[in-house]
């Protein structure tokens, strides 16, 4: 039995508006008409030039305010490494120009890949505005092939997950060609893949093969092209045997430019510890279709947060109707949250119950875990976590969920259920007041604590 591959391509995205969760730029006139006294609004954030790897760059923050107060722009950068912060002050001159440039020095330059900038502007009047932008950092060298876990839209470098499905392991990865040159690059559709036990080139070659993308590939100047490849390794194949023995593998994919030059990228493939979540919408009819979509994008993002630490999760989608939920659509106390766990926890699938409620009101908290750690049964008042759905209405009047925030919030409460306590480590998911950019988990003690929970298994 041998491993086979299947491949496809993904939509092309502009390199300076690269993220699915990016903020929409605002029209200056429209924003000015809506500005109340003391308010400030960020109209747009863009790099002053394409962001190139290992080179300094600037972000231009365009804003409008009723009064020209001094203030601070703070940019949290999420990238392959730990998030970091770059700040600058603003004054009357910046107000007059309508923008301020935030400088990223040489020691804050970024590698090829994606980077998400979460920009906050606070002025002396106490007004605050925020904006999120993702850019593709293009290679200075100037053409690369990068591999990442399939369908992950967070920044970061982590392993691809091998998932056992019946008598095979499936491994899905994204392939990104990044062109930092001013000329387009034509590529051959075929690719070669190799799975290695140990380092690529010096370990043991486990399996190799070829595949092809369905359409001709041209990577435009200063742009990216993305595709996906799924490998199916049936029982008896070399890859299956290695993964089934819980060994890590390295996969390399090599593609060829039309001029004959080759380009390659690699990533670690491994099985992971896994747990399950019963994601339960409480008051299902109170979730709009957009909120439903946003909820599961958030859960995908929660999975990516954990997979960065080599732990994955499965999801069972569940719901409770408004009529069934009664007063549980609005949680107003810890006791009510525990009533919800007591009355609705289950089914008995050894998954953690995650109740997403339309509103937690009047309490000051937006989530709760039944216990630290939570029980490995669906009985009693400790079995479950609850989170406010964290919604908002967009500029078009459509109700959405704040995907990045909700992903963090679910991850935080589930972290408690898995045994994690609050920490003070900057950027950590388990900060008592973690924000959407605080998503890191450490190896010791957090990873080592999680894998000891009774509902965490080897996938």
């Amino acid at each position, binding site marked *: 039995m041998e491993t086979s591959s299947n491949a496809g391509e993904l939509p092309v995205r502009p390199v300076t508006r690269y993220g699915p969760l990016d903020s929409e730029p605002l029209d200056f006139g429209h924003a000015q008409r809506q500005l109340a006294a003391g308010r400030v609004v960020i109209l747009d954030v863009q790099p002053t030039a394409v962001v190139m790897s290992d080179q300094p760059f600037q972000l231009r923050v365009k804003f409008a305010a009723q009064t020209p107060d001094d203030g*601070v722009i703070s940019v949290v950068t999420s990238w392959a490494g730990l998030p970091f912060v770059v*700040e600058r002050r603003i004054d009357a001159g910046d107000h007059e120009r309508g923008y301020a440039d935030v400088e990223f020095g040489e020691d804050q330059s970024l590698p090829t890949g994606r980077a998400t900038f979460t920009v906050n502007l606070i002025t*002396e009047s106490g007004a605050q505005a925020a904006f999120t932008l993702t850019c593709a950092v293009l290679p200075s060298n100037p053409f690369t092939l990068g591999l990442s876990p399939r369908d992950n839209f967070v920044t970061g470098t982590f*392993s691809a997950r091998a998932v056992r499905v019946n008598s095979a392991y499936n491994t899905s990865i994204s392939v990104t060609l990044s062109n930092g040159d001013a000329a387009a690059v034509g590529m051959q559709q075929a690719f070669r893949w190799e799975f290695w036990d140990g380092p690529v080139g010096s370990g043991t070659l486990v399996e190799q093969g070829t595949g092809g993308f369905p359409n001709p590939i041209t990577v435009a100047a200063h742009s990216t092209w993305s595709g996906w490849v799924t490998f199916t390794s049936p029982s008896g194949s070399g890859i299956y045997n290695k993964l089934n023995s819980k060994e890590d593998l390295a996969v390399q994919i090599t593609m060829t430019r039309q001029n004959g030059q080759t380009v390659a990228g690699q990533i670690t493939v491994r099985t992971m510890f896994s747990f399950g979540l019963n994601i339960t919408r409480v008051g299902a*009819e109170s979730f709009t279709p957009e909120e439903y979509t946003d909820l599961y994008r958030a859960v995908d993002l929660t999975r990516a947060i954990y997979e960065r630490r080599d732990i994955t999760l499965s999801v069972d989608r569940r719901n409770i109707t408004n009529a069934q939920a009664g007063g549980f659509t*609005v949680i107003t106390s810890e006791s009510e949250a525990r009533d919800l766990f007591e009355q609705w926890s289950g089914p008995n699938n050894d998954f953690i119950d995650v109740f997403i409620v339309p509103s937690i009101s009047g309490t000051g908290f937006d989530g709760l875990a039944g216990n630290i750690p939570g029980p490995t049964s669906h009985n009693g008042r400790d079995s479950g976590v609850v989170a406010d759905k964290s919604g908002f209405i967009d500029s078009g009047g459509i109700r959405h969920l704040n995907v990045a925030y909700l992903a963090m919030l679910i991850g935080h409460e589930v972290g408690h259920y898995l045994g994690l306590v609050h920490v003070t480590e900057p950027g950590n998911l388990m900060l008592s*007041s973690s924000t959407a950019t605080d998503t890191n988990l450490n190896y010791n003690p957090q990873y080592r604590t999680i894998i000891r929970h009774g509902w965490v298994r080897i996938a």
Partner: protein
Amino acid sequence: MSQTAGQEEPAVRPSTFVSRDDLPGVRAREEINMLLTAHDPEVAKANLAQLTERHSPLLREIAREPATSAVNPSLRRNAITALGHLVSVDNLNLLTDLARRDDDELVRASALTSLANTGLQLAVPVLADATGSPHPVEAVAAQKSLAVLTARLGPAAVEAVLRPEQQRLVAQTSRGQTAADDDR
């Protein structure tokens, strides 16, 4: 599981911060942001206890700030909660305005709950009106809030400030209906 799983440490870059020494307004906002960002009950309780009347002007501003995809959603919700614990004319006027007129059903629901937490009889008519909302979450919030006030003030005190058509609602909500139907 492999020997190295979970152990790879991410790369780091240095941060660059600016001084807030001569920016008291920025510092005040950052302090209040921290107090309004709590995920869990024990932290929330401690944070709310630190908010006093001196925070009210900024809390009112935050309670009016429109939400976007980039804004921490807990700030506005918890500012509304905090205003319910800091009873003043300005705070009550804002809560009433949000409960009656905000575009977002969930903001109205939060404001209704906060009004009930004030324990003031004045909140009763606002809550009673909202019990008939066509928006289910708002209606549930109003019903539960009215039940809270009824339990706290007594049915007579509540009925005294209701119009006749609203008194029927009090009779319904005071029976309580917060238990979930467990027939799934």
